[in-house]
């Protein structure tokens, strides 16, 4: 039995942001996450800190909210952000009136915008198509969502927050109009625990409907899957948006040494279907190539998919038109007085969503301390700094000792970074496996997709006693299966060759595909 003031369900951007916000108000929290940090949509997006430009036509309120929050985050969490600026471009065949109206709509939302001559746009970004008919510069930026959430939960932990990774909610116990306790199961060990909390916040993203249902509340949710592709190298220095009604493959966002192209929008019925498909990858490539021709022949290192949690309004058929604003439900209508759900919204507005939720929860508990995330910068904690492409090498080159061997050569991840992350996982009383180390570093994210570094990190973890018996073999299998989901849609040319090598090593040579019971026939 664990006791806490607030139980937060979900370890994405909102859940971890809320944990930090409440922790800074002196509130003790437990964050329960069924996977790991940013397992859902928080980790499966462009990493785009919106200027707001994308929403000016359809949702001016969201556009203005994005603008305000993006500018604030640039001050509060600069270590997670690259202020790249962004271009909105229209190409031949796109709606010219739509493009011409853009600056006016931006100004109406207070979003700074500057018209750029198409020729000048191509000088700024040589990869752009020669068929540009209009271009505008906005203050888009990029944000590393993993670093952001890891740093939020890191500071929250220092203020007494407990993180329970791999814990799934099994049920709620209620008395009168109160949730008295919540049942959880540790998905790794199978251990069952009970958490008693004064307040419970559902920040489960796409899983918010399922959680609410367990609590006896009803949320009508729709799931919109988005698929994105990661390029082998960085294509542009700025964010590139297609200036048209939002559609597939119309945003290209740089992130360190790579670029991310997306996204699709497709209704799915079940949350078991969150993986990118070959068809979606082809669609994104074809559409992206209209803005940037080299995207057609570029090497992609992987794809990934996330689910936009859309609180369904019922009548609108297009998910592109669904509001990207957030929804905060107090569940009084469901007869619950200490339960709240925060859902929808954008990564860009995660802090604002956390603040509003923390206000509601604090108010319910009679706590009057103000929100500090608006004024106190997010500390840049070292164990959370190994996620951004390109950062690890800079850090390593700066203070590297010869003994500190590189375990990942594509992304230059040194042994010390892996040890640092492992120590931090231990501090947060979590289990340590290859996948959780990979999530917190660039291990497995470079062009080899873990063919060499996965094995090296496992060997290192055996040498340091983190892995025992066949745990590491099972870890390697899990690691490659996880990588595979993203690889499968982009397997042609260079990445297919890479994958053939991975299979030759890990199946052909090491026999990882051979079932354990068959493996023991070999003696």
């Amino acid at each position: 039995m664990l006791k806490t003031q607030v139980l937060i369900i979900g370890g994405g951007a909102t859940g971890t942001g809320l944990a930090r916000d409440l922790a800074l108000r002196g509130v003790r929290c437990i964050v329960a996450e069924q996977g790991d940090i940013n397992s859902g949509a928080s980790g499966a997006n462009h990493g785009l800190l919106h200027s707001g430009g994308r929403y000016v036509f359809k949702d001016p309120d969201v556009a203005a909210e994005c603008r305000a929050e993006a500018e604030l985050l640039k001050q509060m969490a600069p270590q997670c952000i690259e202020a790249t600026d962004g271009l909105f471009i229209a190409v031949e065949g796109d709606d010219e009136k739509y493009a011409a109206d853009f600056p006016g709509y931006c100004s109406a939302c207070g979003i700074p915008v500057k018209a750029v001559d198409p020729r000048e746009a191509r000088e700024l970004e040589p990869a752009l198509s020669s068929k540009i008919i209009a271009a505008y510069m906005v203050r888009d930026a990029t944000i590393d969502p993993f670093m952001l959430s890891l740093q939020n939960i890191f500071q929250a932990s220092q203020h007494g927050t407990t993180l329970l990774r791999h814990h799934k909610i099994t049920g709620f116990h209620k008395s009168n109009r109160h949730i008295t306790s919540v049942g959880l199961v540790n998905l790794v060990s199978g251990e069952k625990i009970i958490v008693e909390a004064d307040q419970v916040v559902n920040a489960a993203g796409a899983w918010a409907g399922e959680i609410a249902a367990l609590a006896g509340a009803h949320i009508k949710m729709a799931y919109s899957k988005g698929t994105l592709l990661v390029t082998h190298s960085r294509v542009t220095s700025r964010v590139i948006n297609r200036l048209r009604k939002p559609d597939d493959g119309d945003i290209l966002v740089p992130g360190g040494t790579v670029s991310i192209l997306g996204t699709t929008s497709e209704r799915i019925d079940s949350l078991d279907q969150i993986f990118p498909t070959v068809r979606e990858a082809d669609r994104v490539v074809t559409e992206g190539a209209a803005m940037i021709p080299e995207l057609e022949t570029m090497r992609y290192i992987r794809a990934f998919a996330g689910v936009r949690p859309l609180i369904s309004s019922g009548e609108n058929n297009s998910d592109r038109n669904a509001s990207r604003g957030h929804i905060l439900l107090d569940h009084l209508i469901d007869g619950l007085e200490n339960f709240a759900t925060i859902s929808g919204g954008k990564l860009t507005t995660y802090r604002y969503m956390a603040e509003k939720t923390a206000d509601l929860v604090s108010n319910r508990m009679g706590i009057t301390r103000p929100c500090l995330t608006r004024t106190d910068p997010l500390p840049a904690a070292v164990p959370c700094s190994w996620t951004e492409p390109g950062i690890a090498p800079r850090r390593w080159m700066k203070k590297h000792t010869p003994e500190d061997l590189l375990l990942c050569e594509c992304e230059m991840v040194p042994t010390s970074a892996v040890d640092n992350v492992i120590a931090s996982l231990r501090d947060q009383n979590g289990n340590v496996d290859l996948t959780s180390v990979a999530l917190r570093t660039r291990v497995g994210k470079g062009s080899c997709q873990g063919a060499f570094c996965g094995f090296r990190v496992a060997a290192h973890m055996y040498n340091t006693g983190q892995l025992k018996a066949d745990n590491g073999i099972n870890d390697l299998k899990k690691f490659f299966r996880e990588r595979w989901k993203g690889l499968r849609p982009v397997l042609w040319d260079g990445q297919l060759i890479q994958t053939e090598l991975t299979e030759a090593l890990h199946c052909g040579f090491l026999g990882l595909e051979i079932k354990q019971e068959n493996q023991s026939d070999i003696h």
Partner: protein
Amino acid sequence: MTSIDPDDLASDLTIIGTGMAGIAAAVFAVNRKIKTLLIGNTGTSGFASGMFDLLGVYPLKTGQIRIDPWAGIDALVRENPKHPYARIKPRSLSAAIDELLAYLKHAGLDYCTTGKLNSAVITPAGTTRLSYAIPASMKNGVKALHEKKACLLVDFHGMKEYSALQIVSVLQKRWPALKTTRVTFPGYENTSEVFTENMARAIEVPENRKALAMTIKPLLDNAESVGMPAIFGIYNTRHIIRELEKAIGVPLFEIPTMPPSVPGLRLMETIKSDLPARGIKTFFQNRVTSVKQTTDGSFLLTFRTPTGPREVKTKAVILATGRFLGKGLYADRHNIREALFDLPVVQPDTRDQWHQKDFLDPHGHRINTAGVEIDADFRPLNPSGQVVLPNLFAVGTILAHQDWMRMKCGSGLAIASAYAAVNAYLKKSGKSPF
């Protein structure tokens, strides 16, 4: 184009590709005194494990482990008449392996088999794998794994892709008497990262061997054998093992390592230096970039050299260019093509069918059975089943209807098809096989 007369290199047979299939074909051609040219770039041969697998798993569906590869091959060809193994008699496959092993022995490299059965070899992950003919340096490891007596696994500070502790930890339940120790390789006291190839070269020097033996001997305890990552030299392995065993006092064995591995390197180095001495012209760092047919039905090949492209005329070609990694096959977003002759490639209809949803799906991925179809003489066929060119043969992993990675039949496939193709060439050219 350089001014060298193409006739300088004119050959009866050109083997394109220097992986397992290409070098096996070259060995068979040398033995049959065929005027041969071998061209390729090292490519995937750097990834050779140095072990010769015949068949380890069949059928894939049940993942059945095959201790007896011959029984497995028998079942395989009965149920999969299109598998390349179905084009060669087991007797010929056996003869091909014997011929290759005899050649290697003569060139100074010893291999061994366990009767007609597969041997179980420890991998650097701590898993075990089956192989048919293994480097003699691994033989004592097969015995040790089988008997599970007291055994010490040694590894070295600074190795990134090898952990003796991992191997021991994974195998502990099956083999409690397995122990481990980590030492510094003599002379590498101030080196942070060490590579097996460097250690293998260092160990060629007698003083270094002595120092290594002195380091290990006091750590033996009750160990009846000692296993190390594969580093027992590149050129004088036979002698190095004998000397080390004498100095340490117990049988030693090598455990294969992740590529580029010393046993693979040893194999390639041995053949690379031996073939030219036996009269074959070889080009090991040169990719053939294009091919033309001349009016008399011969081939005019263009290949890259450091001084520019070069042309060579040849009467017949054995294509041993491998799959995607070897660049024998090429895939764009829609199709798989054969890279040099644009030969027909049998393949699934769409890219969505190339790979399974699970990386470790026991059935294997369909793309891995795509490739070039051949007749009984290993000549590529067009979709209507006719021979594309009478003097073109295809061998090794480029062939369709096989999954060498999952069935563990890569070397067997390479050797069998090379043997069959060289003999078929001889027959067509009116010469007898011997």
